[in-house]
């Protein structure tokens, strides 16, 4: 598993610059446009400035984009045109280790993107608390969820265009409706429960809590952690199953 991870890490080191700018560009642009632009006309939200409100969620979104992108376009290239997966499976490494290595790698890339975003928040005038350290494991598990979802898509994809479905129907709705840009508490209860069930909603809420050290209610905390861990586990299992079906005849 770590050997598969290592291979991807080694390749990544070669293309560090392009990879980082590509993955971090979007969240930073949103932070600028919404935080500084829209933020001027938006009153305080849950006791924070609009910039403060959206910053932790955008960190979480950077993780999502980076992990999902790697596990779709990156993994699919290794699966199809490059034949890397097949080359690896000719060695003692089996399909479960391969799938877990790919998920772990996607999560690592997600974490790197999230961490850089988090570390640069003070430049925008957002000061995280010491509790923000707790975001690191949280963002890593978030990375596992989205890397696994990406790998599921990779396992069923027939070409690159297939990932447009994933981006438009999964990633973009998650980005817009997981409470990054508006408070889910303000949404009508029936809809709120649906949106709260999205794994990214829990990540965004916990990120905001940890980022500023504002904890409210242990009950919601437990539920949110359970949603995140459950999603990571289930999506990883499905990814392993589908990749096995794809690679082993």
């Amino acid at each position, binding site marked *: 598993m770590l*050997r598969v991870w*290592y*291979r991807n890490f*080694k*390749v990544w080191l*070669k293309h560090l610059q392009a990879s980082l700018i590509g993955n971090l560009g979007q969240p930073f642009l949103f932070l600028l446009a919404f935080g500084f632009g829209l933020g001027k006309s938006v009153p305080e939200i849950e006791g924070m400035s609009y910039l403060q409100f959206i910053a932790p969620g955008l960190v979480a979104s950077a993780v999502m984009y980076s992990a999902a992108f790697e596990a779709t376009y990156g993994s699919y290239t290794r699966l199809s045109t*490059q*034949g*890397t997966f*097949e*080359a*690896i*499976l*000719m*060695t*003692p*490494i*089996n399909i479960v280790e391969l799938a877990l290595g790919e998920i772990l790698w996607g999560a690592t890339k997600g974490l790197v993107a999230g961490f850089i975003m988090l570390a640069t928040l003070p430049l925008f005038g957002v000061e995280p608390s010491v509790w923000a350290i707790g975001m690191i494991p949280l963002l890593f598990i978030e990375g596992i969820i989205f890397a696994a979802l990406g790998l599921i898509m990779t396992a069923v994809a027939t070409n690159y265009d297939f990932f447009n479905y994933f981006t438009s129907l999964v990633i973009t709705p998650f980005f817009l409706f997981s409470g990054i840009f508006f408070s889910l508490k303000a949404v009508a209860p029936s809809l709120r429960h649906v949106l709260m069930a999205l794994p990214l909603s829990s990540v965004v809420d916990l990120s905001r809590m940890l980022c500023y050290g504002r904890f409210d209610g242990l009950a919601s905390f437990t539920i949110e952690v359970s949603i995140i861990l459950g999603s990571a586990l289930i999506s990883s299992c499905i990814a392993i199953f589908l990749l096995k079906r794809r*690679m*082993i*005849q």
Partner: protein
Amino acid sequence: MPSNPQSTKTDNVLVVRNLKKNFGNRTVLKDLNITLPKGSCLGLLGPNGAGKTTTIRILLGLVIPSGGEIEVFGKRYPKAIKKVKYHIGVVPQMDNLDPDLTIVENLLVYANYFKICKKVAKERAEELLEFFALKNRRDEIIQNLSGGQRRRLLLARALINRPSLLILDEPTIGLDPQARLLMWQRLEALRKKGTTMLLTSHYMEEVSRLATQVIIIDNGMAIAQGNPKQIVEEMLGMEVMEFSGSPEELESLAKRLKNCNVQTELVGEKLYVYIKAGCSILDDAASNMSHVVKRPATLEDLFLKLTGRKLRER
């Protein structure tokens, strides 16, 4: 090299019994048996779609068989597959070198999959680059390599774990004669060192040169098996005569040859006569007809005789 396929179990690197594989309704392997004694090179021959690559993919765990038994190094599949694969090297039919890495990195990253420590991997990589004449291109990216260099790197990569069984799936496909010759020389050197090999190829010359034993498979079953020279002699004879002429002319010749110890095969305007023993009728015919070629019988003759001369459309 004399080798006895019925020898005791422990001498065999690979034993396959009654191997079967169906993909949906399509049967690829019906009932395949293979025995590969230690130190020998087995050539697996067959037309496209005969089940050669499927057999190799089963040995690698990439295809799950529908039935049958497999033992590698005396260990049973599928239980032992992970352990066994530490000692198998593979040159695949399709180039799957890592294009994101340089030549030497390809070897080192691959060594890592076999849990070979960095120091040993580096030593072996340098040795292999030397042996395969790739040393001065070690830091080059894969895209810049020629077909021959890629194939040599694939073989070098397959040897990074010092395999006890080397699987070669059409190792010289698409190479020019010079590059092929270099590959053959390296493979012969390995065989002399005692590396056990399983080879599939469409180049009969390659198989005749490298293999100590051949199995010809068609429709998922072995249809001939043995030492390449011996089976050609036993099944066809030493020599072949090719007569050209009108179909009627050739048909009547074939009829007259019924009493000789020969086999005939009429294909269009050509009559192939596989000669087991000399025959006066044949000598007469040879002196009467203008277009006659006499040459030694080859594995290719046997292959075409057994699997047919028609193109397979599947």
